[in-house]
C-alpha cells in the first residue's frame, strides 16, 4: 500500500501540475507531510517547487474546501483535491452561495478512509515507528515485532461511519470510485444515549461539555459554519457569554449543532479537531436522525439542488409535539 499510495501521489501530482503550471488554476489546495509520518497538512501550491511536496496518503484528513471562502477573495481560480466528505462540504458551500462553481476545479479522490494516530498507538504502543499498508491491512512497526491489523479498525471514527467515500461532485475523478457503503452502526451511539433516562443524559452531556475550552475549532473547521458573524460574537443581544458554566456550554453546543440541522454533511471534522474529545457528532447525528425520521431521508451535501429540510415544509408534516 505504501507503494500504491506513492503511486497515487505521483498520479495526483501529474493531474494537477498540468492545470497549475499551465495557468488554468492560480492555486492548488492539496496536502503535504507535517513533522510526523502520521500528519499531513494543507498545502497551498502555486509553483512546480510547491507541488514537489504534495502527498496523498492515509493522513490527509483536513478538509480543504474550507479554505475556499477566503482564498477565492485572492485567487481567480482554484484547484482543490477533494475526498468524499470534502466534496459534500463543497456542495454545502455552493448551496450557501459561498463559492462559485466555475471558479473551482475539483479533483476527485475516492477515499478509503483516513487513519487515526490515536488508534494506531492504542494498538501498536506509543513507540510505534511506522506503518506499512497492504490492501486493506496495516502492519504496525513497533520496536519489538510487527503487528498486522485490518485497516478498517484503525480509521478515524468519522471515517468508520462514512457512507460516501467517493466525491459526489468533481471535474476530474483521479481514481476508480470505491462505491457507497452501508453503515448499519451509524446511529448506534445516538441510539444508546436515547435509551438512557433524561437525567442520565443530562449528566452525560454536562460532563462531556465541561471540557469545552471554547476554542471554536469545531466551528472554524465546519463547512456549514460560514456566517460572517457568528451568534457567539454577536454583541446585542449578547447570546453567548464567555464563562465556562454548564449553561454557557449548552448554549454554545446546542446552537452550534442546531444550526447544522439539515446542513451537517456528517464529515466529523468538528469531532476530529476537538482537542478535548467532546463527542460532537452525537449531537449532529441526533439531528440528522430525527430529521430523517420526521421529514424523510436527507443527506446534506449530496445534491446541491435538493432543498435542505429546514428550508421547506409540507402542510401535512408530522411534529415532535402534540398538535391537538
Amino acid at each position, binding site marked *: 500500500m505504501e507503494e500504491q499510495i506513492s503511486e497515487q501521489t505521483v498520479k495526483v501530482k501529474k493531474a494537477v501540475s498540468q492545470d497549475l503550471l499551465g495557468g488554468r488554476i492560480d492555486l492548488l489546495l492539496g496536502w503535504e507531510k507535517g513533522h510526523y509520518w502520521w500528519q499531513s497538512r494543507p498545502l497551498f501550491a502555486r509553483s512546480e517547487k510547491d507541488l514537489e511536496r504534495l502527498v496523498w496518503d492515509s493522513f490527509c484528513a483536513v478538509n480543504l474546501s474550507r479554505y475556499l471562502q477566503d482564498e477565492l477573495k485572492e485567487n481567480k481560480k482554484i484547484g482543490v483535491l477533494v475526498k468524499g466528505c470534502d466534496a459534500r462540504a463543497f456542495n454545502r458551500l455552493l448551496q450557501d452561495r459561498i463559492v462559485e462553481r466555475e471558479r473551482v476545479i475539483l479533483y476527485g479522490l475516492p477515499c478509503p478512509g483516513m487513519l487515526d494516530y490515536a488508534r494506531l498507538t492504542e494498538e501498536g504502543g506509543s513507540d510505534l515507528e511506522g506503518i506499512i499498508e497492504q490492501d486493506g491491512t496495516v502492519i504496525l512497526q513497533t520496536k519489538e515485532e510487527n503487528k498486522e491489523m485490518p485497516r478498517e479498525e484503525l480509521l478515524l471514527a468519522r471515517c468508520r461511519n462514512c457512507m460516501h467515500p467517493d466525491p459526489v461532485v468533481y471535474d476530474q475523478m483521479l481514481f476508480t470510485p470505491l462505491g457507497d457503503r452501508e453503515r448499519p452502526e451509524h446511529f448506534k451511539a445516538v441510539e444508546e444515549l436515547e435509551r438512557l433516562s*433524561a437525567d442520565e443524559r443530562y449528566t452525560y452531556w454536562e460532563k462531556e461539555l465541561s471540557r469545552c475550552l471554547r476554542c471554536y475549532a469545531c466551528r472554524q473547521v465546519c463547512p456549514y459554519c460560514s456566517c460572517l458573524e457568528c451568534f457567539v460574537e454577536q454583541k446585542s443581544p449578547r447570546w453567548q457569554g464567555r464563562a465556562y*458554566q454548564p*449553561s454557557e456550554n449548552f448554549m454554545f453546543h446546542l446552537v452550534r449543532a442546531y444550526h447544522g440541522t439539515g446542513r451537517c454533511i456528517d464529515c466529523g471534522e468538528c469531532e476530529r479537531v476537538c482537542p478535548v474529545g467532546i463527542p460532537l457528532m452525537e449531537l449532529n447525528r441526533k439531528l440528522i436522525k430525527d430529521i430523517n425520521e420526521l421529514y424523510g431521508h436527507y443527506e446534506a451535501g449530496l445534491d446541491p439542488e435538493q432543498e435542505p*429540510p429546514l428550508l421547506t415544509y409540507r*402542510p401535512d408534516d408530522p*411534529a*415532535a409535539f402534540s398538535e391537538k
Partner: protein
Amino acid sequence: MSAALNDPATGWEPLIVAFCCNWCSYAGGDLAGTSRMNYPANVKVIRVPCSGRINPMFILRAFQRGADGVLVAGCHPGDCHYSTGNYHSRRRLSAFKRILEFVGLEPERFEVRWISASEGDKFAEEMEAMTGKIKALGPNRKMRDARWKSKSLSKQLK
C-alpha cells in the same frame, strides 16, 4: 418571579415562559382574560410576531434564566398571518425539541401548541395543563445558570 416564590423551601411555584404569536395565541390569551377564564399566574407571556420568529436561543435563554418550562404557541398550521411561518416553525421546533430532550431535558418542559385567537378556552387549558405537569416535575436545574439571581420584585413591577 420573586426569589421567595422560586424557593422550594418557601413554597416553590413554577415559572413558565410562553412565547405567543401576536395574531393567534396572544389574542387567544387576551380572549381567555376578557372572558374571565382562569389560568395560572405562573405563565409569563412574551409576544412575538409569529411562531416562526422563535430563535432556539430564546428558549435556551429562558431556561438559563430560571424558566421551569417554555411554551411556544402559534397559529394552527395553515392559518399563519404570514402564510407559512408556522409550517417552518413546526419543523424547526420539532428538531429543537428532540435535541433538547437528547441532552436531558424532560419532554414536558418544552412544548409547542397551536392556539387560535378564538380558542381562549384552549389557551387557559394548555396553561393549566403545562403548569400542572411542571409542578409535578419540580424546579428545573438543567441548563440553568447557577449565577443568575432573580431580580427583586419591586424592580420587576416598574
